[in-house]
Structure formats: C-alpha cells, structure tokens
C-alpha cells in the first residue's frame, strides 16, 4: 500500500480500523527516511528506536481496543529547536551538539499524548536564524522539487521532510515566516497560529514576542487535526492564551461565500510578473468560490523588515545571552579563566549569522542608539498593528503571496539585505501576532511551487484555516508530490 500518498488523517483511520499496524507504518517511514535523507538533509537525528518503541505500544493498545489518541500512528517530525526529553536538541548549532533535553516541550508532550510517532529532529538555520537553511552548522537541507534549490528557512528540514513524504507532519517555529516561507517553497501547507495559541515552553527562544510553534502538513485538514492537539493553554508559557482549544476540522469550508478578502494591492506593486500572475489567478479562484475581494491599505508593511530586524535581533541578543558555556552547551577548551569561557565559547559555538544578529541586537539596545532604533521600531510596530486593525474592520481575512519569489539555488544571496527582503510578506503576521497560513498555489515555469497566504485577526485561527481549505479544495495543488519522491522506496 502506498502509505506515503495518504493524509495523516487517512493514515490514522487506517490504523484505528486495524488495516495497518503502527509498527508497519513506522518501519515504512523510517525506510523512506533512510533512503532519502542524504539527498534532502531534512533530518539531523532519526529517532528509530524511540519511534519503534512507541509503535509497539500503540499496536498493543489497539489490539486491546483501548482508547487511542487523535494522532494515533501518525509519523511526525520535530524541528530541532524544540525539546524531546532525553534526546539531543542542537538548534543546528555547534554550541549545542551535546545538549540533552531535560524535559519535553509542551507541544511535543501533547503530540505524544495523542499517540503521534516522533520519527526525528529536523534541520534548520542555526537557532532558526535564516531563510534558506544554509545557516545550519551541520549541512544544508534541499528542496524536494529541485535538489539544487533551498527548501526555505528556517524550518527548511521540516518542510523538506513533509514535501518528500518521509514524514506526513512536522512542527516548525515561525519568528518572521520560518514556517510559511519553507512551506511555500516546498509546496506544502504551513500554519503560524495566533501569538500565544501554542505554548512556547521547550522551544529554544529566538524573538520571544514573535516566536510561535505551528504545524507543516501535506494538506489543510491535517493542519486542523494537528492544531486541535497543539492549540491549548499551558501554564509554563506566560503568554499562552487562556482560551479553550478551537475546533478546526468540523469548521472547514468548501466555499468562500459571504467572505470578504482584503488585498493590499499597492503594497504588492513590486511583485515580479510571474508571481503577480500567479497571485491574480488565486484571487480569481477565490472570486469563483464566492469571495468578495476588496482593496486594503497596508503600505506601512514596506517598513516591516526594518522593524523586524531591530526587534527580533534585540530579543535574540538577550535570549542568546544564556549560552555562556557555564551550565550547558560546549565550553571552549581554550578557555583558561572565566572571562574566556564566555568570550571563546560564544565565538567558537555560534556561527556567522548568529553572531551578526547578536551584535546587531546588542547595538540597537545599547545606550545612545536605543531611542533611534529599538523604541522607534516598537512605535512602527504599533502602526503596523493599527493598519491591520483598520483593514480587518472591512474584511474577514487578508491575502498575499507567501514569498516574492519561488525557491532559489543555494548561494544565491550573498548580500544580507537581499536575503532579508525575502521575508517581506511573512514578517507582518509576527509583528502583529496574527494567525497566517501558507497553502500551495501553483508552479512557476521551472515547476517550483508558489504559496498563497491567508491572514486573519488574532484568535481567528480556525476561520483562517477554513478559508485556506476552501481554496485548496478548489485548486488541489497540495496533492502534488515531487516526482523524485513519488515512489515507495
């Protein structure tokens, strides 16, 4: 049976109906990982033993007709900046090659409680800082649609694993687009929930006012299924929202009648022709589904990259101060006194991009520059939020492309600003704490996927997912499997 072609939802039901065993599923996907991971660089660690152990327990439980979890038998990959108890969390950094997580992240705990099978830890840009996965200190990850190209970043390994169907679901973390942009580049679905919807406990912090964990899957319904498990209040994250979990699956829509979609046409002016045409076609599809399309003004988003690279680096510089070589991580062997433990461990442990962002964050917070940069950025962030509020008073959701271009060859961007500009359409959802989903919207002339993004007001997670579902059902782009991986083994 071609298990890789199934959705997580279908695979779970097959397992619950006793048509396939959890051990069979696990062996099948571990074999797919073994066969393909060298090409893809998607996984940093494969948890074969842990996965098989869980599978055996599930088979036992199923045989005894005991109640099963909502994700029973589904292979899930975890981004390697999120803790799984007793396993190594590297954040793709040389600093943490020896760091054994003393506890599981809440997201991981919830997935395991619902009987998901954790198959491994996925590759990322070091400490989630990057848009191409080239900043992993181990090896880059590649795009299943074109192995010369990036899967995007920072959750590049997760998107690559899901697109190639070596895992059906993966978690990501999104600080400025790190779930959505790789999902768009790899032709899969990625969702960044409302800020506070999913607990960040056990996620290694990057920009605390922006970070959010979310799922990447092959289709929108599986996103809903995973969110019903992950979207719960957690007392260990002070920003975790104290609202009941939402129902996603029963609210999935097939059309967009009576839905008003806002499009920031002026802000999108600079799109290249191919990306523009693809976006216009998506808008036509939404119209045919009954949506009312209106123009909204979000011109302030042109400043969002500058705001982001001030606030995110400022927060990162304080968050990453904890990596000092004293309590955990790799301590420099060259350090002869305490001062050198800090200075040398941090020089040797952090990669180039991470150092750059720590230095920039330290700069914008330092005396004399704080007013001009950090506080100014906080004020412009307020303007971004106000612009979204004004837009949402006239529409139910906002649509934009996920990225200005499709996946590019590794090594394309040598200039830092050029790379940062690729986040222009994703960053604003983090600045305003909004739920946003990327769903495949077609292919360019080189058969590389485009992504379309739906954004909603805070707490409108389930509606945003439901709009994406209607679009997906009308277009079916998410059912396409990269030809190189469209075979069992």
């Amino acid at each position, binding site marked *: 049976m071609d298990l890789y072609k199934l959705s997580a939802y279908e695979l779970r039901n097959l397992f619950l109906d006793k048509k396939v065993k959890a051990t069979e599923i696990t062996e099948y996907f571990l074999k797919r990982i073994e066969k393909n991971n060298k090409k893809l660089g998607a996984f940093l660690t494969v948890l074969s033993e842990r996965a098989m152990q869980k599978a055996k327990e599930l088979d036992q439980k199923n045989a005894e007709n005991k109640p099963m979890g909502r994700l029973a038998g589904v292979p899930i990959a975890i981004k390697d900046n999120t803790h799984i108890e007793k396993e190594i969390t590297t954040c793709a950094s040389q600093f943490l090659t*020896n*760091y*054994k997580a*003393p506890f599981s992240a809440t997201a991981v705990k919830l997935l395991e409680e619902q009987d998901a099978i954790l198959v491994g830890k996925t590759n990322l840009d070091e400490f989630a800082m990057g848009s191409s996965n080239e900043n992993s200190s181990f090896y880059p990850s590649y795009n299943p649609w074109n192995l010369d190209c990036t899967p995007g970043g920072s959750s590049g390994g997760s998107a690559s694993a899901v697109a190639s169907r070596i895992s059906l679901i993966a978690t990501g973390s999104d600080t400025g687009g790190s779930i959505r942009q790789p999902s768009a580049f790899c032709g899969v679905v990625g969702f960044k929930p409302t*800020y*506070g919807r999913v607990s960040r406990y056990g996620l290694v912090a990057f920009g605390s*006012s922006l970070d959010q964990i979310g799922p990447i899957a092959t289709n929108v319904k599986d996103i809903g299924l995973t969110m019903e498990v992950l979207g719960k209040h957690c*007392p260990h994250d*002070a*920003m975790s*929202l*104290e*609202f009941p979990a939402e129902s996603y699956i029963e609210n999935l829509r097939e059309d967009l009648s009576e839905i008003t979609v806002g499009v920031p046409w002026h802000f999108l002016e600079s799109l290249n022709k191919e990306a523009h045409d693809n976006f216009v076609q998506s808008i036509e599809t939404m119209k045919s589904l009954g949506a009312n399309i209106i123009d909204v003004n979000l011109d302030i988003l042109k*400043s969002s990259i*500058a*705001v982001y*690279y001030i606030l995110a680096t400022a927060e990162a510089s304080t968050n990453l101060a904890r990596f000092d*070589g*004293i*309590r*955990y*991580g*790799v301590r420099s062997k060259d*350090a*002869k*006194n*305490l001062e*050198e433990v800090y*200075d*040398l461990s*941090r*020089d040797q442990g952090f990669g180039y991009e991470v*150092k*750059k962002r*720590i*230095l*920039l964050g*330290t*700069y*914008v917070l330092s005396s004399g520059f704080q007013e*001009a*940069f950090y*506080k*100014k*950025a*906080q*004020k*412009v*962030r*307020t*303007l971004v*939020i106000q612009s979204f509020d004004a837009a949402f008073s006239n529409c139910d959701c906002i649509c934009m492309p996920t990225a200005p271009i499709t996946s590019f060859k590794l090594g394309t961007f040598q*200039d*830092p*600003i050029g790379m*940062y500009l690729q986040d222009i359409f994703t960053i604003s959802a983090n600045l*305003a*704490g909004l739920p946003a989903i990327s769903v495949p919207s077609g292919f360019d002339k080189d058969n590389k996927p485009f992504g379309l993004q739906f954004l909603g007001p*805070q*707490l409108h997670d389930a509606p945003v997912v439901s709009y994406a579902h209607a679009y997906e059902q009308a277009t079916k782009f998410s059912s396409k499997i990269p030809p190189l991986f469209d075979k069992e083994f």
Partner: protein
Amino acid sequence: MEKFNYQNLEDLQKLARIQLKDEEKKDLLESLQKIVEYIDQLDSIDTKDVACCNHVSQVQNENVVRDDVVGELLSRETLLENAPDQIGGMIRTPPIMQD
C-alpha cells in the same frame, strides 16, 4: 562618518561577550554597516504621539501571575547532566580570580 564604524564593532564584542576572530571582523563590519543603513529608514516615518508596542496580544493583556508555591522541578542530577564540568554536585568553572 559611517553610522556604524569599527569602534562600534569593538565595543559590541565586549557588550555581547563574543571575542571575534580577526578574519571575521572585516566582513561583519561591512555587513552590519549595510544593515544599519537599511534599518535607519524608519527615521523617516512619523511616530509622533505613537505609543511603543510593549505587548503584542490584543486578546489577553493582564499580567500573568501564579500562586507563590513550590512546584515540581527538574532534579539537580538531571540539570547537572548537561554541565560541561562538575564537582560534588556543583558546576565547576575555571578560576574566577587570578592569584
């Protein structure tokens, strides 16, 4: 004068406690100069009477507190497992003071 100069980089190394290698410095300086020039564009935006965004959640704005009781914590042994060096149940560091 450049907005971001070599002296800034030297100062930041100390503040951020990263001792950069000489070969890294030239490239980092150039890159940071470009970024600082880019983020400086915010200066042209009128933010008179605009408040700083100190809190992003619009749906939950109260301070989060809990009862002041000891909860279940990770054991000392578990936490020390990740220590680069330890002695007698404590983390060991190189000398803090010189003779």
